[in-house]
């Protein structure tokens, strides 16, 4: 057995170990990995997601327990003796080798600016760097000092923009200072850079291009960055992200040749001058040039793994994929192939639409027959299809490939040799072969080919390949139905089915479950609820989740909470008093909700009808807090009172809430109306949000709070109230008919082929000719609305369900007990309760 030493435990070193272990089936090599960072290899490409809350554990690359791989971390190699074939680490440990691979990566380049070593100056490369930046930002944000908290990012490349985004997430106002005349100058050309800057600035990020930072000075407990144009920027944090330098000191000291601009010189086999020593990744200079992306490093790792086992693999710089795709501050940017048209005679085809905010360029050969590269800014949806075509014959006119409404390429446009996944070098041929032997969905393709497990940008293309191969993607709801929710909706409408039993007998198997039953209940309610059909009528009652079944929200101790509707958050003093009296008389815990209403907690199931009776007598009705249905339409006080309001936001909110109350949908629906652009109702965090303008209303769609917060996007602007309501009617009905179970509006819009543009085409321009139908369906809902609480109070057979025990209807559940907390009853054993 021979000894291989891998110096460096980053992504590329990790890949080498994986590739070698996959191929070295006879156990030729025993591998020792020596790393400087104390952490195991992690996904540095996704480093910025750490600020979004992704943990270090989640970023760690998977490793198998393997007796042939030993890792020593936190102990850098400090000396290399090629003659003696031995390395020494900082702790004095010596390792001899038969082969050595340098995978040391790079370090951030910090320009020689006076003051760069001051406290508050950071680089952006490792998790430890991010920990330090987060700590410093946290101190700045929580300090008592008045004024805004700011940061300066030195360098407007890919990493600099990521750093700026991270700093903004941490509560600082970042300014990006770039010495080059444009942002991301490596990836993007002048035209794309201009648009990128405009889009980035519209995300309220300040950008200064063409100026240098000349000094950093301390200013009490803060910093001042002095610029070459005389401007001084104050900052709590300065982050240097002005490029990287290969780590080649170890190789230099050992006498190995390095490139003119640094990096260990290697040939097409990634071998250095010493036949036992190889170099891969960012520390290697392949024929004199270094590469700062992970895909070329992975390609080098594959070559060395092959060579170590006697294989013939080789590479040239032309083989290295320099493609990049990213979403930067909400702006899509992609660059691939010869993006700067450096090939002799290359022609550039540009489609620049400053109104839509998109820029696209293709670089083609001098005879316009071969695709060489391209740049996409603002809309990178065509990247997945275009990148694999680099070096191949153009399948269509180049303008048509990037023009709006141009040619939409299918997977059949690619030859079998086209590389679909550049992270793992997987060709279309390899994927087709995997599909033919049974990999019938994206997870299966990922598992057997690794395609799509790197940057993930080829996943849309994997879906196209599956579709082209005729493989149906499973959208089955559960074991009882092979259909998606949208398909069941069509079946129910088309066949006029009115019960679950009929549906499951004709189109499903078994007797359903807690997934399909509420989904079908929602469909039936959306289609024909209302006055004649209470959701607890007949068999439908058995389909409802416990919240819908008891028209209240189950809490963790088995009690329920009760929320009366308060449309638009507007309530009379008498109403407030009535709610207060109910809470007092039934000893309920009371809390104001985020949706501008009042939640009454701790009601036992047998108390619910009596509580509702009191609320209904006082003029209230169910607020549907328990349903996958419209919850609230939140509003600011609007022009009625506010000095700044330009429209009556409360009036509109009340009208909308009364129009859509009781509407069952795939998930809960929230809305908000703001009376002016100050947006006090937070309408853009809602599934549909309305913001008043001088001329009417702007309608935003697809926002939500919760686990993955999202801002709603503008659908139409300056429409009058009539048009607004018709558009919302269409939007909600289209959502109800086509969304998946428990899919909120944001992911639903994302899932539409064409996204927001498609939605706009369907509900504003009526491209499918269904708008009249959608509006009619909503009219039917509005006309058929009835209060669900009253429906129970008026029906003795429904009332009979609201008992604690069938044999002791009024006996309270003995497991329910309360203690008093801040003057109100709360369940016993409340976590976080103060002693």
């Amino acid at each position: 057995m021979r000894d291989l030493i891998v110096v460096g435990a980053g992504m590329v070193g990790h890949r080498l170990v994986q590739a070698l272990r996959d191929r070295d089936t006879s156990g030729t090599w025993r591998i020792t990995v020596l790393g400087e960072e104390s952490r195991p290899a992690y996904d540095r490409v996704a480093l910025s997601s750490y600020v979004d809350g992704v943990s270090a554990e989640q970023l760690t690359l998977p490793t198998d327990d393997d007796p042939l791989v030993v890792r020593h971390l936190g102990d850098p190699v400090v000396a290399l003796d090629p003659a003696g074939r031995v390395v020494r680490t900082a702790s004095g440990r010596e390792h001899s080798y038969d082969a050595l691979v340098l995978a040391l990566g790079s370090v951030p380049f910090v320009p020689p600016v006076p003051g760069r070593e001051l406290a508050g100056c950071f680089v952006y490369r490792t998790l430890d760097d991010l920990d330090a930046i987060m700590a410093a930002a946290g101190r700045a944000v929580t300090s008592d000092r008045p004024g805004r908290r700011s940061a300066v990012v030195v360098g407007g490349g890919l990493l600099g923009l990521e750093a700026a985004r991270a700093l903004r997430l941490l509560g600082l106002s970042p300014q990006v200072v770039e010495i080059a005349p444009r942002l991301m100058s490596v990836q993007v050309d002048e035209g794309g850079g201009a648009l990128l800057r405009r889009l980035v600035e519209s995300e309220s990020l300040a950008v200064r291009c063409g100026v240098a930072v000349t000094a950093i000075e301390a200013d009490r407990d803060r910093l001042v960055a002095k610029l070459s144009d005389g401007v001084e920027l104050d900052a709590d944090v300065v982050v240097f992200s002005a490029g990287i330098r290969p780590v080649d000191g170890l190789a230099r000291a050992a006498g190995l040749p390095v490139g003119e601009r640094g990096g260990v010189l290697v040939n097409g086999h990634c071998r250095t001058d010493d036949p036992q020593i190889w170099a891969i990744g960012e520390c290697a200079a392949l024929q004199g040039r270094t590469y700062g992306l992970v895909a070329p490093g992975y390609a080098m790792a594959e070559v060395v793994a092959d060579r170590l086992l006697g294989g013939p693999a080789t590479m040239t710089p032309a083989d290295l994929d320099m493609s990049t795709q990213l979403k930067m501050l909400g702006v899509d940017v992609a660059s691939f192939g010869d993006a700067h048209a450096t090939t002799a005679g290359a022609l550039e085809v540009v489609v620049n639409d400053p109104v839509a905010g998109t820029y696209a360029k293709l670089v083609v050969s001098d005879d316009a027959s071969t695709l060489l590269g391209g740049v996409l800014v603002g809309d990178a949806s065509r990247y997945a299809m275009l990148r694999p075509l680099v070096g191949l014959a153009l399948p269509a006119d180049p303008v048509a490939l990037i023009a709006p409404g141009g040619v939409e390429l299918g997977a059949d446009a690619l030859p079998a040799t086209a590389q679909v996944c550049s992270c793992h070098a997987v060709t279309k041929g390899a994927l087709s072969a995997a599909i033919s032997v049974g990999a019938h969905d994206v997870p299966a393709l990922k598992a057997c080919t690794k395609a799509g497990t790197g940057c993930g940008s080829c996943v849309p293309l994997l879906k196209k390949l599956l579709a082209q191969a005729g493989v149906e993607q499973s959208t089955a709801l559960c074991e009882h139905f092979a259909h998606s929710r949208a398909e069941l909706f069509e079946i129910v409408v088309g066949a006029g089915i009115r019960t679950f039993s009929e549906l499951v007998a004709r189109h499903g198997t078994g007797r359903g479950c807690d997934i399909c039953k509420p989904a079908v209940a929602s469909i039936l309610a959306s289609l024909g609820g209302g006055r004649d059909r209470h959701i607890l009528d007949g068999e439908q009652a058995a389909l409802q989740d416990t919240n819908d079944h008891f028209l209240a929200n189950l809490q963790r101790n088995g009690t329920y909470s009760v929320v009366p509707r308060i449309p638009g958050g507007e309530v009379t003093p008498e109403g407030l008093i009535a709610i207060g009296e109910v809470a007092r008389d039934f000893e309920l815990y009371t809390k104001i909700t985020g949706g501008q209403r009042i939640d009454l907690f701790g009601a036992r199931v047998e108390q619910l009808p009596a509580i509702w009776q009191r609320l209904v007598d006082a003029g209230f009705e169910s607020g549907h807090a328990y349903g996958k249905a419209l919850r609230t339409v939140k509003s600011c006080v609007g022009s009625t009172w506010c000095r700044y309001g330009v429209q009556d936001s409360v009036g509109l909110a009340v009208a909308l809430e009364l129009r859509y109350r009781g509407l069952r949908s795939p998930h809960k629906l929230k809305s908000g109306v703001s009376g002016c652009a100050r947006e006090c109702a937070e309408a853009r965090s809602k599934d549909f949000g309305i913001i008043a303008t001088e001329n009417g209303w702007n309608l935003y769609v697809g926002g939500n709070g919760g686990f993955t917060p999202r801002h709603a996007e503008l659908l139409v602007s300056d429409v009058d109230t009539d048009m607004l309501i018709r558009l919302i009617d269409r939007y909600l009905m289209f959502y109800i008919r086509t969304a998946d179970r428990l899919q909120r509006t944001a992911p639903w819009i994302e899932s539409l082929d064409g996204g927001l543009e498609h939605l706009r085409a369907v509900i504003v321009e009526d491209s499918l000719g269904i708008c009249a139908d959608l509006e009619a369906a909503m009219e039917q809902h509005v006309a058929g609305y009835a209060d669900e609480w009253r429906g129970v109070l008026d029906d003795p057979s429904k009332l009979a369900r609201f008992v604690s025990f069938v044999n002791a209807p009024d006996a309270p559940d003995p497991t329910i007990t309360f203690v008093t907390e801040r003057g109100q009853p709360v369940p016993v054993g409340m976590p976080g309760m103060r002693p």
Partner: protein
Amino acid sequence: MTAGVDLRWETVCRYDRLQPERGVAALLGPWRSDSGASLDAVQVALFRTHDGAVHAIGNIDPFSGAAVLSRGIVGDRRGVPTVASPVYKQVFSLLDGQCLDDQDVTVASYPVRVVDEWLQVGL
């Protein structure tokens, strides 16, 4: 629990009080045993499945401690009749109380019989 060995049959309600594919809760006890010791009350969840059969299991959801299994959705998993806890949605077999999402967890199950249209649970 197997039927026949010293079972105490408690009458709960009429059979037609149960709706198809929905549950009810019953509070049984407390009792005094023959030796005079006091036995705690028991909460039982009874379910009527689509085929008309009635099953009884413990009403207390072991994952939340709340007495709510009777309020879950009744269905089946690979042919086994089930109820899903309304709190954290774990599914239990109505045949033997086994949790089908966590093999280490089981709730009690009880024999049920119908006598003159009245449901009785054996304890």
